[in-house]
């Protein structure tokens, strides 16, 4: 089958592109971003947002896209829409665009089921590949997952995924178990979520010796695609072929059947990209540009996507049902009410908090108007980030089934190979995007949410997406890298500052000292008590040399208690000295906890005075 719009990059002549429109059809909101070449560089001009309309009663994604674009038209006076779609190319100064691109996670995004033979080996590799392609993984099936065959059949039938990725066996290895999995899928006869008359796409990326048998079982009933083995040998994971074919099938089989996408696909000359895939592309850009380890997060309405580019390994996880609107109550369920309440500095009845969040769940497009509501949403966000990162670390770990020689150091440190390979002391950048992080009224709010959710250690640069445009730039970069990078650097990436946080816990009375030598050679000495946080102003673009003397036992990257000298870059918040300890533990006593939260919020000037008045300060 040929996709309704073939990628036609040939038709796009980047040098002719002056006006660009990009949209993201999110699960909650459709966001339009309008870019223009101003002088010799591409810049962000305006944005518009409107509720997404992929589901009933509208069932046409383009309505929401049009509404979002109409907001841009109102704000800029630039005419973009005509009855057929987008006016392309530009006509004069105030009409049309030269390029329109879009991403989508609406209607539940790409929902996949994956299967392998061994849960911690091929099934885990398949999960990583699906997640890497920007999918939500609904279930991971394996021969050793503890479920009986008929239970798996019932489950597969119930799920109705958009696509199945099936792995299993190294090349030349086990065939029987791979065939067994194929037989179960065939017996379940799952139907695709969209379009009941279409064949469900299945990607087989397992033992090449099993291809014939798998084709025999699944080839007639399903749209079977065979690609190179995801684990040809145990020591090597080869996710790219599977990931690429998933992207093709996403367009061909999933997007083309979603309401209104047939129209949307005709509006854009390049394929619609899953939002997490586009978002991940921009986090990779940070890692490549600065040649560094990066952790990124996209905190959305339905999902939390975490990305790590660590020692050149790229892992993306999409935590379905950890989000700030539709799935806000799932965060409540997973984290527990007490874990959310712990981040709220005022008296808050658990019952009221829960009802408040349930009301957000049933009216997901509303936004906080009061500071009280804002703080409660930020409390939930911290827990969504924490849970999303925990999920991520389960997959960002060394390949299983590979024989390793344990060193003496491993034995002494009792290092387990099951643990994530991400060492927070080695993470140089922590960056966030998504409506809530990008729209935080003060950047210090996003800084605190990222720090509390991820607990960076040592010296970590903090950044965020200015107005949520990383997915837009991700898809734009596939056809116009120059525009994407220019806008990313100048208008998208907001440098919040740097977080200096020792690993380890001190005692009351312990002190972290820093000596900051500014670029004008002025010297500032600061000390922070254990349990406190402080910010030193250092503007975006400025650099300073910082000598850090952590509290006793605290490690900032040179070993416990040892000093470290480092050059840091500034940002809108500056240098954040976080001596609250790692792991960060909040006081058990309720009054002390609230007092500490207020102290931390005030130290970073994170919220308006109204909050402190509410708290009786």
């Amino acid at each position, binding site marked *: 089958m040929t996709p309704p719009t073939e990628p036609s990059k040939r038709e796009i002549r980047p040098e002719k592109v002056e006006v660009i429109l990009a949209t993201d059809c999110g699960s909650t909101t459709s966001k339009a971003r309008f870019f223009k070449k101003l002088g010799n560089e591409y810049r962000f001009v305006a944005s518009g947002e409107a509720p997404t309309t992929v589901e009933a009663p509208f069932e046409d994604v383009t309505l929401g896209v*049009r*509404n979002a674009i109409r907001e841009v038209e109102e704000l800029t006076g630039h005419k973009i829409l005509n009855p057929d779609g987008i006016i392309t190319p530009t006509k004069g100064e105030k009409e049309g665009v030269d390029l329109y691109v879009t991403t989508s996670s609406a209607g539940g995004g790409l929902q996949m089921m994956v299967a392998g033979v061994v849960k911690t080996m091929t099934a885990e590799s398949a999960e990583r590949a699906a997640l890497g392609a920007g999918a939500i993984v609904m279930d991971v099936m394996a021969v050793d997952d503890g479920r009986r065959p008929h239970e798996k059949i019932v489950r597969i039938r119930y799920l109705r995924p958009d696509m199945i990725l099936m792995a299993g066996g190294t090349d030349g290895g086990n065939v029987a178990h791979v065939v067994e999995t194929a*037989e179960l899928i065939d017996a379940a006869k799952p139907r695709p979520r969209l379009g009941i008359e279409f064949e469900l796409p299945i990607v087989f990326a397992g033992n090449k010796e099993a291809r014939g048998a798998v084709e025999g079982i699944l080839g007639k009933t399903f749209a079977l695609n065979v690609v190179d083995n995801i684990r040809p040998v145990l020591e090597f994971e080869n996710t790219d072929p599977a990931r690429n074919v998933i992207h093709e099938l996403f367009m061909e089989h999933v997007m083309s059947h979603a309401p209104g996408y047939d129209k949307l696909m005709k509006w854009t000359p390049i394929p619609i990209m899953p939002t997490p895939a586009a978002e991940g592309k921009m986090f990779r850009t940070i890692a490549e540009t600065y040649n560094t380890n990066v952790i990124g997060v996209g905190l959305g309405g339905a999902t939390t996507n975490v990305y790590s580019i660590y020692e050149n390994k790229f892992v993306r996880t999409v935590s379905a049902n950890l989000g700030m609107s539709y799935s806000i109550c799932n965060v409540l369920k*997973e984290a527990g009410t007490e874990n959310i309440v712990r981040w709220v500095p005022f008296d808050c009845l658990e019952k009221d908090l829960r*009802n408040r969040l349930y009301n957000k769940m049933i009216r997901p497009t509303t936004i906080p*108007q*009061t500071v009280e509501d804002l703080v409660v949403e930020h409390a939930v966000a911290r827990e969504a980030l924490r849970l999303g990162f925990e999920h991520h670390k389960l997959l960002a770990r060394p390949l299983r089934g590979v024989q390793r020689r344990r060193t003496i150091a491993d034995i002494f440190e009792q290092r387990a190979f099951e643990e994530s390979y991400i060492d927070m002391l080695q993470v140089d950048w922590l960056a966030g995007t998504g409506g809530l992080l990008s*729209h935080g009224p003060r950047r210090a709010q996003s800084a605190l949410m990222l720090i509390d959710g991820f607990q960076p250690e040592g010296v970590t640069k903090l950044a965020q997406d200015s107005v949520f445009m990383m997915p837009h730039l991700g898809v734009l970069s596939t056809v116009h890298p120059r525009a994407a990078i220019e806008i990313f650097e100048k208008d998208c990436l907001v440098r919040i500052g740097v977080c200096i946080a020792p690993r380890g816990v001190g005692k009351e009375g312990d002190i972290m000292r820093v000596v900051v030598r500014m670029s004008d050679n002025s010297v500032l000495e600061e000390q922070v008590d254990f349990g406190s946080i402080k910010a030193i102003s250092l503007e975006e673009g400025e650099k300073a040399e910082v000598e850090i003397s952590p509290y006793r036992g605290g490690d900032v990257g040179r070993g416990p208690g040892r000093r470290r000298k480092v050059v840091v870059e500034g940002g809108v918040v500056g240098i954040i000295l976080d001596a609250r300890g790692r792991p960060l533990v909040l006081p058990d006593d309720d009054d002390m906890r609230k007092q500490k939260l207020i102290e931390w919020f005030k130290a970073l000037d994170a919220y308006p005075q109204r909050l402190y008045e509410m708290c009786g300060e």
Partner: protein
Amino acid sequence: MSSQAYTPGLKRKAATLVRKTRRLPVQGEVLVKKGDAVNSDTIVARAFLSGDVEVVNVAGLLGIDPWETSRYLLKKEGDEVKEGEPIGMVKLFFGLFKTRAYAPVSGTIERISDVTGQVLIRESQVPLEVDAYIPGEVVETFPNEGVTIEIPAAFIQGIFGVGGERKGNLMMIAENPDEVLTPKQIGSKSKGRILVGGALVTNDALQKAIKTGVQGIVVGGIDDHDLTTFLGYKIGIAITGQEDIPLTLIVTEGFGEIAMSEKTFSLLEKFDDKPVSINGATQIRAGVMRPEIVIPRPELVKKKLADFRGKKDFLEQGLLPGTPVRIIRKPYFGALGVVSKLPVPLQTVETESDVRVLEAELANGKRVIVPRANVEIIEE
């Protein structure tokens, strides 16, 4: 110019033309034709779902290698088997001992695998029937898939519900929209009915309703804790309708004790004791599927309603000065009013966010500024 940047609103109409498309989840047979009159219980389409599959590890049971499976089977693919019937046998010591594998269920042998040594038995097909849900006329048929039924009716959407489609006669329990529905108000007369309460229903009242055989409850609010106790689990995302519960609950306003909107209450009051069809299914994505109460009004002339349908809905028009709205977020949660101004420039609200706002004139005459995202249009 109107603005579309708002939360889609809830419908509350005394008279409209309700159309319901009834589709099978898989292809099947449509049992009625265009123009037929149906009642809410009429079966309009039927399909057969393939039966469950039982996997029998025959090679393991017989102690043979997988590739020998076919050789020792007593049945072939396509054969029917009865529960307990031998499907494979191995003779040992010149036939002195016999090891058998038995069918654990009745069904048809679907697959024999000489790779895995497994046999798949498919149980018989399960019939799946779709009823009309509402009475009315079949106005459209979709071959092998289903039909559309149309009836003039009053139509009210709730904000959240649990439980699927149910039918019964409406019964006003509350006298005022701010009353709390208590177990005492539910008696034997409530059996088979759809009860209308006020501001809150407690778990105790829900349990009494189940015991009494109530079909459904429509109420302003519920505490999340009571909902969790009622369902036996916490709801994480609002995709409902498939719960295995004996009654359907529809909440019109939200979570907590919230008086049912006066207009919704009085509209329901008008149809006390009339037959209704309700569905608690809620799917909160951007377009949203809300729970609904359909009160058929066959006495209305269809043609007039068809004319009425020609008018543009508020939902299609978007926000305009004069559009009736409900504020759905603090600090004015639940307040009703009309749009008085739609300023174009972004405005700073208490959180310090710069957002698109509207000015609403509330029922008490007070004018307030709220983010456009925090209102829903009330369609009447």
